[in-house]
């Protein structure tokens, strides 16, 4: 079992390596994508500077906490789209019956599909995340926890996207539903959870699990808590298993579009 996971991870890393090599054939576009993504993310600082000029504490977060929240949000997004960059195409691939070429590979179908594409701009998100964690406070503990949590967060976001994308085996419009869910998660997880009340907080720990990908990790980095740490790790494993189960269950209903194509 462990050997199998190791082999799949190695395969995924190789996929990412070749994806990046392919993208780097045009170096100017490659660099522009990364630099502009960093600038793009940095624009949000303006928004928060203005909010904090009006009030010192927003939803229990000071300005430094917002920096940490942004670091985690951009880091998790980066991991998701560097390693599982094809996640945004998954519903369309299923709906159009275009996953034949992945089915014949002697590797895990879901991992093969997800890692077949890398979003270059996500490298800009990753750099931005680490820049912010340096600004927040650089020490070994923060770097290790941050790295671990952006990996678990990236996996959580990808798994949720797989679960919703698998609706494409049963219904049309699954692409719109998946993109709405992922963009909703992204919109929420850059704002302090303290400003939200009531039922919405339940959503953060169920169908929009940014509580597990952003909010709990933030509180652990601020003040380490072993129980919360184990909850994040446990939830990540659970959501991955659910995503695999739902995808493979849906795959039994897959019908090919009979499109002859080659993956180069």
């Amino acid at each position, binding site marked *: 079992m462990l050997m199998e996971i190791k082999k799949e991870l190695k395969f995924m890393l190789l996929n990412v390596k070749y994806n990046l090599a392919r993208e780097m054939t045009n170096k*100017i*576009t490659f660099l522009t994508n990364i630099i502009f993504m960093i600038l793009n993310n940095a624009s949000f600082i303006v928004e928060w500077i203005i909010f904090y*000029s009006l009030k010192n504490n927003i939803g229990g977060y000071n300005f430094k906490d917002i920096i940490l929240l942004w670091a985690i949000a951009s880091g998790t997004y980066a991991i998701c789209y560097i390693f599982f960059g094809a996640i945004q195409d998954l519903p369309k691939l299923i709906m159009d019956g275009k996953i034949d070429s992945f089915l014949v590979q002697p590797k895990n179908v879901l991992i093969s599909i997800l890692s077949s594409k890398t979003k270059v701009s996500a490298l800009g998100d990753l750099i931005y995340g680490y820049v912010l964690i340096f600004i927040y406070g650089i020490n070994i503990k923060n770097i290790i926890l941050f790295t671990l949590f952006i990996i678990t967060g990236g996996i959580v976001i990808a798994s949720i996207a797989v679960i919703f994308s698998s609706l494409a085996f049963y219904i049309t419009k699954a692409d719109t539903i998946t993109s709405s869910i992922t963009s909703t998660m992204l919109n929420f997880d850059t*704002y302090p959870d303290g400003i939200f009340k009531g039922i919405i907080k339940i959503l953060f720990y169920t169908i929009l699990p940014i509580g597990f990908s952003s909010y709990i990790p933030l509180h652990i980095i601020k003040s380490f808590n072993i129980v919360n740490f184990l909850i994040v790790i446990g939830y990540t494993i659970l959501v991955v298993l659910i995503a695999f189960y739902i995808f493979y269950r849906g795959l039994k209903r897959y019908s090919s579009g009979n499109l002859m194509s080659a993956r180069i």
Partner: protein
Amino acid sequence: MKKYLNIYKVTLINELQYISDIILGFLSFVVMIFIFLNLWNYMYDDPSSLIEGFSKSQMIWYVIITEMIWFGTRNKTLINQITDDIKSGSIAYTLNKPYSYAIYVIVKNFGEITIKFLFYLILAIAVGLIFVGPIDFNMSNILMLIPVFLLSFIINACIRIIISMLSFYVEDAAPFHWLYDKIILVIGTVFPIELFPKFLQPILKFTPIYVVNYGPSKLVIDFSMNSFFTILMAQILYLIFVIILLSLIYRKGVKKLNVNGD
């Protein structure tokens, strides 16, 4: 002129097939409004207090209007189609057609966003009335708001086309669109210009934020004839500027076009 009207009509009829997509997209709009509703509720300790002259309901209505403009006018044609046409070389097919490519794209864009914008307009009014309540608004101002909103859409479309036409020079114009998105979305939709530091406010009045987002939204929440004429004048000047820039970039860009026969 008739040919452009026909392009508009055909695109509009075509868009009627995608109403379910528009409705599914409502989720993101409602989420954004929900976030800012919570945020501004938190920022106003006392609901009757004012921040830079804006009441809480005015501030939330401002966000609703700016987000409505953002969601209701966002269109892939302006962002992806032009870049794809340039990258694939298919823009060459339009060179010998009896219409201007730029006007064709603007008209097609309006055909695509008309229904979407009307849906978002209804949704925005409903969300505003349910969660914030009515604001002081004189219905007779609608006639003056129509040209301001139309000019806002045309200027936004021209700026998008200018950015997409950068594909004549760089392979991928998408990063420039991200930056424009963020200027409009982050700086332009969240709060009025009055909340920025005093030294930045005159500079922001020269940016697209003033004519695309701030102007129309400000007139909805706090109308005055003085600000109407100031905003309308700024929009007309901005439109002249972007049209000149667009024609310059297009003429120069087309000369750089290399088309591989296929």
